[in-house]
């Protein structure tokens, strides 16, 4: 990144931070607060971490967000707040012998999760490498550009959030805005994120992305079916990443990338269910995980079918 991309600190985080600073020096803070005219500012300012919200508080927040989004996008949104499913450990398996590098998953994800088109954010990167070398990340590139895929002699490996059991990103977060939920999804409370980007530095998979500017998702066909911890519209200055499509998977659906894959390389399910595809794969196929020497213990397995 060059200097001109270094952002000013975010509006939201800035107001929280500068408030605390100023408030510390010069109490009472009431005049300062009354200067703020932005609607919902106070509610947002005093909003707790998602984990600590009562059902009633969640309902209120969800309602407020739905109104905000409707105002901005002119469409009715639903913002879900479904908690982690009981008796479920989500896991993912990806068949490297099928993947042809078509990037359908990448754009399926963009549409489902309302990813910013400008500036561009992709939660999935498909790496291309030489077939002969096996999985060698040193010579891998996501920028390949062929007329047709798979290209002769090349192999492909999509990478996204690995939903580690021992996730470095959640440990470095100074405010616990990101955590491993009970069903195995690593989630982010965008409203709690202060934009420090420690998690981006900590993630060995490059799976986290920062909103340097106000994200602009496609307005046409924006997905109004959202989750608080998932694909609801984000703001400038917060980190985002793959959530296993929490808005879909907590309602029993497959993630969007599974459905987008034309070759059926992507498998998803519940590790605690012995009948699930992922359980079958762990039992019957050789699987490997990325950078296992870091002991991150991903729940994202790669295999050769």
């Amino acid at each position: 990144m060059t200097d001109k991309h270094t952002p000013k600190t975010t509006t939201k985080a800035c107001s929280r931070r500068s408030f605390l600073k100023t408030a510390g020096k010069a109490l009472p803070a009431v005049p300062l607060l009354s200067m703020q005219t932005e609607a919902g500012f106070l509610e947002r300012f005093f909003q707790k971490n998602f984990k600590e919200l009562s059902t009633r508080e969640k309902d209120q927040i969800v309602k407020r967000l739905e109104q905000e989004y409707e105002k901005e996008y002119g469409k009715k949104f639903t913002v879900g707040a479904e908690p982690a499913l009981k008796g479920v450990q989500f896991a993912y398996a990806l068949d490297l012998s099928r993947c042809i590098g078509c990037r359908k998953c990448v754009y399926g994800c963009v549409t489902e999760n309302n990813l910013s088109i400008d500036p561009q954010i992709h939660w999935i990167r498909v790496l291309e490498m030489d077939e002969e070398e096996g999985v060698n990340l040193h010579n891998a590139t996501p920028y390949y550009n062929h007329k047709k895929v798979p290209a002769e002699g090349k192999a492909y490996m999509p990478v996204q959030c690995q939903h580690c059991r021992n996730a470095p990103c959640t440990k470095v977060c100074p405010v616990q805005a990101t955590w491993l939920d009970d069903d195995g999804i690593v989630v982010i409370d965008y409203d709690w994120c202060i934009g420090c980007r420690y998690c981006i530095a900590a993630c060995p998979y490059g799976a986290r992305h920062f909103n340097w500017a106000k994200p602009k998702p496609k307005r046409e066909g924006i997905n109004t079916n959202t989750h608080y911890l998932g694909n609801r519209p984000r703001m400038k200055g917060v980190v985002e990443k793959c959530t296993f499509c929490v808005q879909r998977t907590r309602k029993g659906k497959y993630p969007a990338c599974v459905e987008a894959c034309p070759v059926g390389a992507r498998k998803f399910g519940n590790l605690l269910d012995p009948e699930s595809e992922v359980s079958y794969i762990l039992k019957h196929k050789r699987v490997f995980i990325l950078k296992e020497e870091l002991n991150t213990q991903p729940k994202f397995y790669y295999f050769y079918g």
Partner: protein
Amino acid sequence: MYFFRPDQISYKMILKHRNIFSSFWGARIFIVVSILISSLLLTSFSADTDEPSSDKLGVQVPPPPFSEDIFPCSDCHDEEQPTNPNRRELEEEHEDLVLKHDEENRWCLDCHSPIDRDSLRLANGTHIGFEVSYKLCGQCHGPKLRDWKAGVHGKRTGSWNGAKQYLLCAHCHNPHQPAFKPITPLPAPFRPSEIRLNK
């Protein structure tokens, strides 16, 4: 320290996940599931065992991907169009159909029935419908069929914990030229240097 190669690690993981099922609840679930399965098998034996196994799997398979107006085949393949069992270049019809599937050892009637063109024919002479064409493929691609039934080869959509849709082999592989055709990829991502911040 780096003791394990990835394939060894995977074995470790398999063992680890096996442990889930040897637990107290795992054992109980195993018993209940086996009772369920055996009762299912008992009932299905008395019924038609040749039932599309997709029913037993609890998955729905979309109809076969025929071209328009080709089915039923018996519209043309009636008494006036007797079966010609000879290997030849087809000229009157299906002329763009080229066999590239172990073609030296194969001809149309290894798969299509000579007496009922609306059916496929297994090696043992059994006739099956096109909606279960995977049984035909499974004769020679057994391991692939097994993986397909488990949802590992091929594609399932729908609900990870409920009703699923399943694609037939023929939805992805043209039975006559089964190698997957290369396709056009979607655009590459921008390089960081190409990304401009909007104002």
